[in-house]
């Protein structure tokens, strides 16, 4: 696998071109042609799971339903990530355009931003904008209404089916899949749930064309991505980079010169130790990320890092399924027991097996991904956990 050179680009925050012209242009073409282009662009969801966006829209378009919905997932609960907030603060218009575009393609007439409770301060601005855009859309004959719904404050409500439950006024517990939201989502109707950044990408594709878009990134990871960079870094904040660079290049650019490990993808992502920087590609062929990149230098205790992640998960698991609810507690308390010599170091091997079970048997992505951080840290920094 070939990595790209690290290159900073500027598409996402670039001011929006004429919204109505863009929409009219799309509306003058065949919907299926647009879908083919979107699929061909290679755009994968920016919320973490990496599903092909064009395919998701196609499935929703083809799903039978008298009513359909578009939901923008702005729950952004991953600790240390704030790229969606930045987008909504600076270029919310593009997000709303993306949602309208989606509504037009799949045949939905309502769209909601599911806004993280902490981001309420954005809502006056968003509401005003939505009111304006609702009118604009009407003027070009697009029947699509935008609105906001507020998150409940639980991390798991970022998971699309828990998000839908929460929007329906229920407890935010992930549903069984199948059925997937594209066939049975909000109020049982076909629903597209996409990340904030994903919607912006669809607008960029409509603007610059899928040929141009495909030139960015690698075969498996098309386009650009916002990264929230934190930890022991030389530059902190949000950066837009082309996908597919090697972690070594990334650390050269953003590390503080003493980087020991990078947590790619936040609490639910993987910890990559220095010896694997070169071979690790940031993207769907390597390690994907919703945007969070946390850099650790040699002064950091990886035990503490892991301890924090596990504490987060044992709190934020919705608690409904056994592997995740109990598994998180066992991993969390297990490493403490090993540290305190209450269990032998070999107990870590049992816990790795447990983490595998959680990966295979948990009901949703939360429980399925706890093992990522756990196994990658325990395997690479075992001595730091034990001693």
């Amino acid at each position: 696998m070939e990595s790209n050179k690290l290159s900073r680009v500027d598409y996402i925050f670039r001011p929006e071109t004429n919204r109505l012209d863009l929409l009219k242009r799309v509306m003058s073409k065949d919907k299926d042609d647009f879908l083919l282009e979107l699929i061909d662009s290679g755009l994968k969801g920016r919320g973490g799971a990496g599903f092909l966006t064009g395919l998701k829209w196609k499935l929703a378009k083809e799903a039978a339903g008298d009513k359909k919905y578009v939901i923008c997932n702005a729950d952004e609960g991953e600790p240390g990530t704030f790229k969606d907030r930045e987008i909504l603060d600076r270029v919310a218009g593009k997000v709303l355009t993306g949602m309208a575009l989606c509504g037009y393609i799949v045949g939905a007439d309502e769209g909601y931003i599911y806004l993280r409770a902490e981001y309420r301060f954005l809502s006056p601005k968003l509401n005003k904008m939505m009111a304006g855009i609702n009118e604009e859309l009407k003027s070009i004959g697009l029947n699509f209404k935008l609105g906001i719904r507020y998150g409940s404050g639980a991390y798991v409500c970022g998971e699309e089916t828990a998000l839908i439950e929460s929007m329906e006024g229920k407890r935010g517990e992930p549903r069984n899949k199948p059925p997937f939201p594209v066939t049975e989502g909000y109020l049982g109707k076909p629903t597209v749930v996409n990340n904030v950044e994903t919607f912006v990408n669809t607008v960029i594709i409509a603007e610059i064309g899928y040929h141009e878009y495909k030139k960015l990134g690698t075969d498996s990871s098309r386009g650009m991505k916002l990264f929230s960079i934190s930890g022991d870094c030389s530059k902190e904040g949000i950066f837009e980079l082309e996908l597919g660079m090697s972690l070594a290049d990334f650390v050269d650019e953003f590390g503080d010169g003493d980087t020991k490990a990078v947590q790619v993808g936040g609490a639910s992502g993987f910890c990559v130790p220095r010896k694997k920087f070169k071979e690790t590609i940031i993207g769907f062929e390597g390690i994907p990320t919703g945007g969070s990149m946390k850099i650790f230098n040699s002064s950091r205790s990886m035990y503490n890092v892991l301890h924090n992640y596990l504490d987060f998960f044992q709190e934020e698991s919705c608690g409904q399924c056994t592997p995740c609810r109990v598994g998180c507690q066992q991993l969390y308390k297990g490493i403490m027991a090993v540290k305190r010599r209450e269990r032998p170091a070999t107990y870590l091997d049992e816990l790795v097996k447990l983490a595998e079970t959680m990966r295979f048997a948990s009901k949703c992505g939360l429980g399925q991904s706890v093992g990522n951080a756990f196994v990658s840290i325990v395997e690479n920094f075992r001595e730091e956990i034990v001693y």
Partner: protein
Amino acid sequence: MTQKMINLTINNIPVTVEEGTTILDAARKLNIRIPTLCYHEDLCVAGNCRVCVVEQVGMRTLQASCAVPVRENMQILTNSMKVRQARKNIIELLLSEHRADCTKCYKNGNCELQDLANEYRTGNQMYLDLVHEKSFTIDMSSPSIMKDDSKCIRCQRCVRTCAELQGVNALSVANKGHEMKISSFFEKPMHEVVCTNCGQCINRCPTGALVERNYIDEVWNAIYDPTKHVAVQTAPAVRVALGEELGFDPGERVTGKMVSALRRLGFNSVLDTDFTADLTIMEEGTELLTRLKRALVDKDTTVSLPMTTSCSPGWIKFIEHTFPEFLPNVSTCKSPQQMFGALVKTYYAQRKNINPKDIVSVSIMPCTAKKYEAQRPEMRDSGYQDVDYVLTTRELAIMIKQAGIEFLKLEEEQYDRFMGNSTGAAVIFGATGGVMEAALRTAWEIVTGTPVPFENLNITPVRGMEGIKEASVTISGCKPEWSFLEGVELRCAIAHGLANAKQLMQAVKDGKANYHFIEIMACPGGCLGGGGQPIPTSPEIRKKRAEAIYSEDEHMKLRKSHDNPEVAQIYQEFLGEPLGHKSHELLHTHYKARKRY
């Protein structure tokens, strides 16, 4: 429309099933059992325990077989290494969060978690013990139900039962992560919330987290006390289910063996709630006819119609909380249990020359709500608590086992002569629609002097397991004193399970439905599916019990309540007439509105 068929293999065995079938059900078709915990036939799928996971070849994650429908060419493995490893870990995880003191547990021997632990030979606990660092107090506030969170595996069967089947929502999930638990409203004690004490959650709890408050020792002590006369009554639905606890298949009638076991246990008199079920029909039937007369002849606009039945105490508590405006519609009759209790300490005491203070009145019920009912302040009309202890069918089975009685081989015996006689009409009280049928058999005959115009007295339109049933009969051939009913179409409705009751009453409230008489039973299937009946329960098991009830009815010599000679006798010797002064004093009552929160 024919269903599309799907081909797949399970453990390399090909199978073809209808589209929409779950992997779990497809496996059952091949006689492959996949363990389950959160799955229950009566409830919607939750998919949260994950013990039912299976491997789908080509998929990274395991699939919850209870939740995932089959797809064409699926290859499923139910016992691969990956599956076994995961399943075993999951069971271990559940146990690490569970106070597994089986030998001290009420559910010892009838526990789905214990069975799984046994099957997987979990042995030494692998993971850290998460139970002992938390403090748990057992909620014993309700006279019917005990809730012990240290035994809870969070399968949410109880939550789904209370919401889906009962529409009560007394239980819900609180908190998240490691603090997630099953809780009542604001974590209040169970006796302070909207819980109806129906016990349906108990019937579906796979562990010992929800069980009945048992009064076994209290009853033994009464039996051992030589100064006490312990009288026991048995409800209609007990006799068609008790056998399930004692070695019989569902649907076996064990009336005679039960009577003989009760004598061997040492009860001084073995009486039958069916007797007061017959009495209920006389009182309630008369009440209905009186209400109809007031409405139709006297044009009295204050009379409350439709009249609803009152024999299900779960329904009473529900209506007190949820539809207090309909309380005047509820028949003023006490439940048969409470009529019996009031009579045991008056009529029976007088006739047997026993001081009522020395009588301990015990009832064997398919029901947990009756434990609560017995302790209501309204239920002391004899001057004492009318019913002292209520045992469920399950508790009776425990006593029979404790006493070393070999139930399977027991001779059959008859109830006592006095307050032990009943008719088929009383037996069918145990099934949904039964009170309606019994009431119609009697009311029709009072009004017309002829038997109800249904073959063999079987009023089949009111039978069956449909959630809400409607029936109507046009009355004809009235005796002169009932001529005002000539040609009247008597409209009846029947609901079982409180969610159905809620729907029915809401329709009445919204003016979308118009009836004269409504029968409501809090539990699915009626008392035969009561919260005190043997566990497990399923539509199939309830169907078998219902068949047994109707067969018991068919085997009775007398099948109409008003034909019960003891009923005639009690009116003659003691009560006077239906709805008379004495009846009012002992057999009728009124209920009060309660808040929802």
